[in-house]
């Protein structure tokens, strides 16, 4: 991520990078996790641990 700025907020917030916007399989998990109070980073890690494509 940019080193030109002091970054604020959640590093795992949903964004588009390159032509990858939708983070297949993980979008729902992250959304559900954040809705339930779980940190998004944790949800992503768990998804990766389970071998799901990001």
């Amino acid at each position: 991520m940019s080193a030109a700025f002091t970054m604020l907020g959640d590093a795992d917030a949903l964004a588009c990078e390159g032509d990858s916007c939708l983070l297949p399989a993980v979008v729902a998990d992250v959304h559900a996790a954040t809705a339930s109070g779980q940190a998004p980073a944790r949800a992503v890690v768990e998804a990766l641990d389970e071998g799901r494509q990001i």
Partner: protein
Amino acid sequence: MPGAWPDLAPGVTDSTPASTVPSPRDPVVVDVWSDIACPWCFIGKRKFEAAVERFEGAVTVEYHSFELSPDTPVDFEGDEIDFLSKHKGMPADQVQGMLDNVAGIAAEVGLAYDFDALKHTNTVKAHQLLHFAKARGRQLDMKERLLSAYFEEGRHVGRVEDLADLAAEIGLDRDEVVAALESDAHLADVRDDQRQAQAYGISGVPFFVLEGKYGISGAQASETFLGALQQVVAERSAAAAAPAVGVDR
């Protein structure tokens, strides 16, 4: 352009040059890099606007160009599922589920994404239109119109004639828009934005830059945007108060 954009949060105006030493009451300057074909950019826009509504101060916003997929053809044959299935090599049902999830998140901020109607296209002309509108003080209106047209209405945002229609809908001169887009009058402005993004190290959008100092990446919670805006003002207040300390009169 207060009042020109129905969804514009109170206090938001098009970006204007900031003074070199802003006072706590000066508008907070926010530069946003984003694309039209970016579902999180529209969602992030709504979350940012919600923060501005709660922010007790003024904000000026300027949008900058970022092409996520510059190789996309203007007239892609197929729908969003086709594009993602072929491009990502994913099963169509997985893509459909993914899009449903995104649409659900969009709905939470009041957006009615319609991926079935969406017309996948190249967005470089749309970015040029945003610069055309900016030169006429209408960039925020144009940005909103383009995002809604693309994600909610299934309108084409890649062809000159379609873009001119959208521009006319917000009151811009249709003939002028056609001439500007056909001559690529604002292509250099788009490239300048892209070079600036590269220089900043911005690799994903939406990307919000506050006062050229703070970066916020992605569709963050409104509270994050609000906290950042408040932090800028608090720092200005502290800076304004600092010179008085120890000064004899």
